[in-house]
């Protein structure tokens, strides 16, 4: 069952998730991260680390966020692997507050 990064990551990119990924399955562009589900082992370690709760198991994905399944699948394999925690994007804290976290 895939694990999916959704839109809350956009313009935040806190990257706490990558530090606990045991198989290096996160990839990223300038805006956010994506999971390569050919590599992900569905352990769920990343899910509670996200400060804006952007990561879901597919089974828990609300209907309006299901569009992210295809986006992760399409983008992750073509982007560089992110394995170390990085600085969040400028404005990430403000966006986090906007998102209600």
């Amino acid at each position, binding site marked *: *069952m895939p694990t999916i990064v959704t839109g809350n990551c956009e313009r935040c990119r806190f990257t706490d998730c990558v*530090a*606990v*990924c*045991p*198989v*290096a399955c996160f990839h990223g562009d300038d805006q956010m991260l994506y999971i390569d589900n050919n590599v992900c*082992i*569905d*352990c*769920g*370690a*990343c899910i*509670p680390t996200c400060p804006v*709760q952007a990561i879901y*198991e597919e*089974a*828990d994905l609300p209907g309006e966020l299901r569009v992210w399944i295809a986006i992760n699948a399409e983008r992750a394999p073509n982007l560089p692997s992110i394995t*170390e925690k990085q600085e969040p994007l400028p404005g990430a804290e403000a966006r986090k507050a906007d998102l209600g976290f």
Partner: protein
Amino acid sequence: MSAGSEQHPLRVAIVGSGPSGFYAAEGLLKSGRMVRLDMFERLPAPFGLVRHGVAPDHPKLKEPIRIYDRIARVPEFRLLGNVTVGRDVSVEELRAAYHAVLFCCGAESDRRLGIPGEDLPGSHTATEFVGWYNAHPDYRDREFDLSQEVAVIIGQGNVAIDVCRILAKTVDELKHTDIAAHALECLAASRIREIHLIGRRGPAQAKFTTKEFRELGELADCDPVVDPADLELNTESLAELEDRAGSVAKKNLEVLKGFASRPARPTRRRVFLRFLLSPVELLDDGGGGGGGGRLEQVVLERNRLEGGPFRQTARATGERLTLACGLLFRSIGYKGVAIPGVPFDPRQGVFPSRDGRIVDEAGAVIPGLYAAGWIKRGPTGIIGTNRADSMATVNSLLADLPTLDTGPKLGAEGLAGLRPGQGPRVVSYADWLVIDGAEVQRGASKGKPREKFTRVAEMLRLLDRPFREKPTEP
């Protein structure tokens, strides 16, 4: 000049080859310093709990081994398997031969219940059972009486659920996994009909992850049973579920409600998920005149919750009930094991440390000694949790470089106990790959990903074979 340059590499001994050891190695290899890593493992087989802990029916969770394999093939890394630190090599010797010693040796023993009858025949630790079905050589010869009809598991963490699932599954559900052949054979004859999973707090406080929990509802010939009364929560628990921090518990409750409301199937086995109960005593069958008896029932005491949301603890009510059972597993947590020459906190079962730096009784840092993973923080979290934890310890180690003993270090070549012909047969990573290949080959004919060797001697024999084996007579 601190160690870590081309001429003067930083030599680190990593003790333990499980996830925390490999993630520490990853961190050191990516540090930009010139490093030489020697990883010590007491078994000939590496990968710790990924090999010997993760349940055989969870093959995906073993995939981190691919990452560890990549690390192990780096020229700066060596595996020294079949070497026990504290016996074959002392910690003092390691300190003399390396700039730093990083303990990633996990939590190998169990917490005890501390109740009468705990050690009766028929009462086991989850560790023993998990090691047994996962072919850990230490547990190869353990015996579990699967002719019993009722098994009780004390604890509701993911290990408890693993034990439960292995007991609950049919042979068909297990036979194409890497479960040990001896375990599969015993499980095939199992007469277990009821499994009781006992938690001391309520369903909203249970520690399992939703995913593992859902699996209990997807078994071929076993149904989960939940008492709907257990799902009537107190106001504090309801408040927990409404909080963001309670999102896992909320999902768990939904799964439980699903279990409670679905129609029962006529399955051979049932798993009873039971809450707010603590074992107070295990009773024997009287021994049948002379000799010690064996486990016949467990006495449970009903609990109630006390305290505010997220601080609720289980308090005994005094109300007792008994449950007849011939088999019991304790799964209430792990503890680390002491190694001579390293401070040990017997209460927590960890090497006391600050930011990964091991400290003595007075709280002073012991230069050059570090800890990561379960031996550092206790047995919490899952495989990936150890990656962040190991990175944090590696960062402390790297920050300490200017203050570490910077003298030249010999690494494994400086260890008298490992000179050829003197100590144990050291198992290198290349040696391990020979064992690994043989296991995969043994499994292939059975449709298993591998058939693990269960004895150290079997594995070592394999390594000598090319030199000793003569062509067999036709």
